[in-house]
């Protein structure tokens, strides 16, 4: 079908001549190669009928063939509702011809934020520019499918919607009533929009008390080191803010692969005068446009950063005023216990959360907690002091900065160079540049978190920016994770209930509870941001968001791959399984369903866990047999649909009304209007709405009136669909009304109307909003101003949401002390997978957003046509491997085969396989994920302390892949 759509023939004068003379049979037989234009039939009856049948165009000469190509019936605004993350999103015009999407082109109507910065036009990338091809390709799912063979055998039965949904509903009812509602588990992925899909999903799982996995730490995007330092991870600038930078440090990122539409701001900032530094093991697509490329051994960036910090301190290129106000560096730590000096040390019934600093005039005083403003305090940055505890004991205390200086002595450029392989010249030059920069900006992405010691790397990076005070000013700042979203999903969920529902246990759970806490928090000086975070933590407590990685480690058997961790990680003090048990026992971390109770139904919503999860064969081995049903909603066939029991065809991105969250890098909400339809595909809203109704109907038919939720409360089932639809307000196909409700109830879109957004396709955010994640940006979004994050802290002196209420570099939680990670430090990467010479790393590709374009024909043709691994010239020569040859990649875990690209740009000792090849693209279905043991780092199991408690999308243990060791040999 895709063929027919994409190979339209055209009329030429010669065609007319021939058709008139010998007839169609003659044309076919002779193949004169003349192109005939004829309107194509739509793919099937349910697809939109042609708007009209155009008459064959007049043919004067060959030029008309091309002119005719560039004609269309209508134009609809849309976007690609996939998680492009850093580069999200771009407004597109979708050109429709004969009822089918013919092509797309960027809207390109964004305006300059102000005259000092370029406009963002046209935005877009090659993947967006061919979705019109992708949406008709053979990977699409056309009909509801039910597995008929073994799981994974690829044998399917086509089902009708009104057969498949009641069947799934029955399985859910069996599980919910017989085993527990928490046994129904949802894995959501890169297609999660925070729009209609999320609205449907959140209403559904709230009513049914299902378990929703928070996958951010599992995927390796949780920026643990950022969370440890800032108490949050989400803060990022707008990309046009780079125009105010005089130094841009691209570190742990390859934005020219992964931020295609934003990248021009970097090249343009460079033209304006900013120096660009890239820091990476390989000379990558971003390095080529830098002024200084700093090579580093993979996983050793902490040593590099700490050496830079060493140079900054040595040369006194540090901002002392900033450090004493904004960071924990002046806070006092007891020499005897290595713990912060706390109020509880000094007073009976004193708080564990109140910390101290030294002022030359006032002596040792409590550090301000409700504001960063120092008033008359002039904290000592350095020093050793003595104090008397409540028990009468006298102890010595030192500032964190003093401890840090001692630590930095281990990181002279010469010593660091041995650890990280970076020339000392580059370390010194980097220190000189950032030490003297007016506005230094960090460009990063979620890379470091995919290293076992990624948190140490991020803490060290943040230290470099903190020492130099590079925060808050236009064009400056270390950054975390980018996320910007409307904030009305929670409202949409709550609005299922009316005042009369106040006795409904579900409503009580959703709406109540928080109020009491809020009063307490206000009294304790919590900022709005901190209270939003606590609301997010409430969702985790309720199971509406549950740790994804621990689900896979415990229920999916991933923990077995950490059995050999003691051989791989020389710093490990005890088996990680022991720490895991301790963490669960102490309530530091949590998992649903509880260990010992099995998950029963797995819903996969726009996600691809069997491609995504490192060591996924363990999940197939340990989890899959426990599951009564695996139900996947997707628009295409994936590594996960292959092992699903039911596949529900979801509408593609041009086939529904939708809105999509973005990032501050391009701070515009984006929308799409339905342009066409495809076979039996339905929007996710409609699928979940119909499923909810099917459960309601089957419950009534089976006489099931209620169920008991995970807390033991009895909840009604008899009005399930009534509640879901808001009393019929939002019907199965009311996607547009849902968009309207979400947009118009948001606090941060300036009263935007859905009808206006739908027409235009994008609209600039006016505030960061109240969402538990986006509040972290901590700045105003002003018209005419670029976005620089964290100004609420830097200029308005709002405390950071950390234990110390400051940017925090010292962590005295017991696991950190056990692992000697109380301060930023370098640790050699573990030998994950065994003692082999090559590090198997990756990174997001320029060729796909996750796996969504990985098997796309056009994208493959611009690559090697199949998965490929980059290796260095030296590693290839030593092993007798040639470019384009096939190799076997192996370690203690498994092996697989892949083609290699031998590149001058790759460092010896590294093999790079970019993100998201589907398992089915590898011979024997085995790829790099098979070799990645994703060892669990015990430090990540910490909790208990204020900001180390799990929070939405952060502070949960994660999975990692970059430390994987392998060897290769030519095939």
């Amino acid at each position, binding site marked *: 079908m895709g063929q027919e759509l994409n190979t339209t023939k055209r009329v030429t004068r010669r065609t007319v001549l021939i058709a008139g003379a010998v007839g169609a049979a003659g044309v076919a037989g*002779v193949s004169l190669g003349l192109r005939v234009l004829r309107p194509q039939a739509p793919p099937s009856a349910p697809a939109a009928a042609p708007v009209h049948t155009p008459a064959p165009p007049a043919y004067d000469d060959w030029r008309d063939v091309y002119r005719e190509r560039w004609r269309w019936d209508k134009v609809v605004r849309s976007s690609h509702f996939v998680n492009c993350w850093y580069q999200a999103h771009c407004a597109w015009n979708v050109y429709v011809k004969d009822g089918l999407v013919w092509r797309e082109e960027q809207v390109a109507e964004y305006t300059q934020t102000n005259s000092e910065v370029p406009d963002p036009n046209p935005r877009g990338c090659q993947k967006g520019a061919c979705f019109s091809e992708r949406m008709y390709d053979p990977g699409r799912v056309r009909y509801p499918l039910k597995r008929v063979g073994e799981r994974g055998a690829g044998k399917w039965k086509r089902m009708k919607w009104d057969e498949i949904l009641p069947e799934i509903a029955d399985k859910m009812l069996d599980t919910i009533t017989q085993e527990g509602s928490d046994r129904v588990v949802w894995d959501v992925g890169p297609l999660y929009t925070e729009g209609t899909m999320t609205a449907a999903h959140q209403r559904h799982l709230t009513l049914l008390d299902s378990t929703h996995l928070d996958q951010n730490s599992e995927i390796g995007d949780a920026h643990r080191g950022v969370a440890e330092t800032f108490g949050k991870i989400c803060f990022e600038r707008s990309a046009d803010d780079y125009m105010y930078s005089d130094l841009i440090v691209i570190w742990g990122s390859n934005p020219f692969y992964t931020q295609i539409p934003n990248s021009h701001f970097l090249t343009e900032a460079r033209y304006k005068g900013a120096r660009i530094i890239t820091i990476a093991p390989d000379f990558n697509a971003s390095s080529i446009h830098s002024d200084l490329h700093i090579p580093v051994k993979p996983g050793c960036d902490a040593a590099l950063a700490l050496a830079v910090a060493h140079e900054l301190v040595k040369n006194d290129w540090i901002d002392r005023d900033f450090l004493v106000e904004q960071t924990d560096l002046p806070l006092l730590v007891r020499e005897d216990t290595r713990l912060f000096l706390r109020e509880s040390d000094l007073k009976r019934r004193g708080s564990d959360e109140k910390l101290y600093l030294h002022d030359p005039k006032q002596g040792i005083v409590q550090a301000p907690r409700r504001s960063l403003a120092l008033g008359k305090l002039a904290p000592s940055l350095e020093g050793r002091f003595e104090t008397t505890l409540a028990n009468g004991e006298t102890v010595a205390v030192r500032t964190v900065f003093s401890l840090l200086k001692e630590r930095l002595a281990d990181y002279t450029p010469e010593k660091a160079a041995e650890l990280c392989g970076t020339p000392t010249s580059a370390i010194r030059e980097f220190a000189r540049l950032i030490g003297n920069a007016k506005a230094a900006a960090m460009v990063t992405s979620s890379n470091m978190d995919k290293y076992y010691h990624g948190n140490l790397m991020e803490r060290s990076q943040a230290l470099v920016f903190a020492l130099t005070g590079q925060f808050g000013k236009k064009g400056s700042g270390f950054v975390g994770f980018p996320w910007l979203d409307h904030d009305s999903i929670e409202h949409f969920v709550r609005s299922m209930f009316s005042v009369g529902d106040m006795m409904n246990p579900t409503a009580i759970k959703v709406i109540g509870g928080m109020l009491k806490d809020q009063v307490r928090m206000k009294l304790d000086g919590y900022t709005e941001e901190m209270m939003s975070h606590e609301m997010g933590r409430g969702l985790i407590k309720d199971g509406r968001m549950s740790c994804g990685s621990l689900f896979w480690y415990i229920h999916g058997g991933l923990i077995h791959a950490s059995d050999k961790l003691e051989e791989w990680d020389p710093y490990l003090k005890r088996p990680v399984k022991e720490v895991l048990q301790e963490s669960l026992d102490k309530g530091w971390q949590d998992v649903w369903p509880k260990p010992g109770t099995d998950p029963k139904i797995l819903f996969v919503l726009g996600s691809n866990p069997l491609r995504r999860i490192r060591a996924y064969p363990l999940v197939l081995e340990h989890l899959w047999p426990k599951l009564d049903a695996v139900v996947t909603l997707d628009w295409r066939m994936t590594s996960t649909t292959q092992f699903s029991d039911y596949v529900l065809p979801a509408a593609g991105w041009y086939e529904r009304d939708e809105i999509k969250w973005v990032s501050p890098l391009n701070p515009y909400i984006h929308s799409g209007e339905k342009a066409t339809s495809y076979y039996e595909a339905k929007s996710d809203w409609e699928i979940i709405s119909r499923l909810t109704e099917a459960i309601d109907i089957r419950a009534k038919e089976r006489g099931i009136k209620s169920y008991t939720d995970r807390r033991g409360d009895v909840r009604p089932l008899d009005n399930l669909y009534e509640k879901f639809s808001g009393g019929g307000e939002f019907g199965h196909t009311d996607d547009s009304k849902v968009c309207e409700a979400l947009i118009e109830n948001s606090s941060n879109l300036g009263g935007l109307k859905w009808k206006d957004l739908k027409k235009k396709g994008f609209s600039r955010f006016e505030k960061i909003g109240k969402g538990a994640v986006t509040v972290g940006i901590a700045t105003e979004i002003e018209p005419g101003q670029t976005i620089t994050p964290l100004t609420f802290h830097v200029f308005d002196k709002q405390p950071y949401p950390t234990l110390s209420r400051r940017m925090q570099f010292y962590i005295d939680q017991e696991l950190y002390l056990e692992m000697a990670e109380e301060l930023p430090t370098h640790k050699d990467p573990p030998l994950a997978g065994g003692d082999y010479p090559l590090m198997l790393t990756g990174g997001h590709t320029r060729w796909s957003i996750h796996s969504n374009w990985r098997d796309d024909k056009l994208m493959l043709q611009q690559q090697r046509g199949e998965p490929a691994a980059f290796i260095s010239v030296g590693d290839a020569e030593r092993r007798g491997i040639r470019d384009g040859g096939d190799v076997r990649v192996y370690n203690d875990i498994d092996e697989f085969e892949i083609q290699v690209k031998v590149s001058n740009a790759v460092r010896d000792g590294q093999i790079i396989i970019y993100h998201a090849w589907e398992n089915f693209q590898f011979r024997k279905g085995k790829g790099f994920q098979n070799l990645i043991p994703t060892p669990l780092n015990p430090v990540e199991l910490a909790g208990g302390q204020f900001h180390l408690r799990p929070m939405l999308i952060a502070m949960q243990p994660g999975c990692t892949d970059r430390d994987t060791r392998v060897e290769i040999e030519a095939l």
Partner: protein
Amino acid sequence: MRAVYAKTELESLLDPESGPWRAQAGESIQLMGTPVGLQPTEAIRVAWMGKTIGAIGSVRVAAIHNGDVLAFRLDWEDPDEDAEVLDNDSFPDAAAISLPAAEDAPMVLMGAAGKPVNVWYWRADEADSARHLTAEGLGTSRTLDVKTVKARGIWKEGRWQVVIAREMNVNTPGAAQITPGSEIGFGVAIWEGSHKERAGIKAFSVDWKQLTIDPTNAGGKA
């Protein structure tokens, strides 16, 4: 040379191995390559300077007509069948009969302004179809239509046998008109695909050959 009259159906005429053709040994015509100096563009001249043009040295030609249709059978040795364009650097074997459509139309130059040559053109990759062309000089050929000329080729045991035929009288401006009983001039050109021959890179009969069209009442069966 004679175009023998035979009361034959068109289908039979188009089959180079059919009875009527078996009876015709035909006449061998020597071919020469179009001189490099006559090639119309510098790029072609430079590219072919010092190279052989016209890889096929001779062709055996026979002609039959049935009163309506005049058919030529060309028979030449060619060890490689190039009947498909397999790649960008692959060219099909081809053959053409040219007839003057005006008096004094020059054969070597494919006609001249105001003195068109009428070409019946067969190409191995265009299977059973052929083109009816007119030309007024090298590089000027223009397709009149693709229905009038009928052709069929068979490659077997290192030889091409190709029949190219057309109704003797057609209503197309630029077409040569032929009357039984008259004498006409004709030319032959062969392009050897494996030698990358196309356009003016070809072998051709040096000047118009004479062909007597037997009258329909002349001699019954040939």
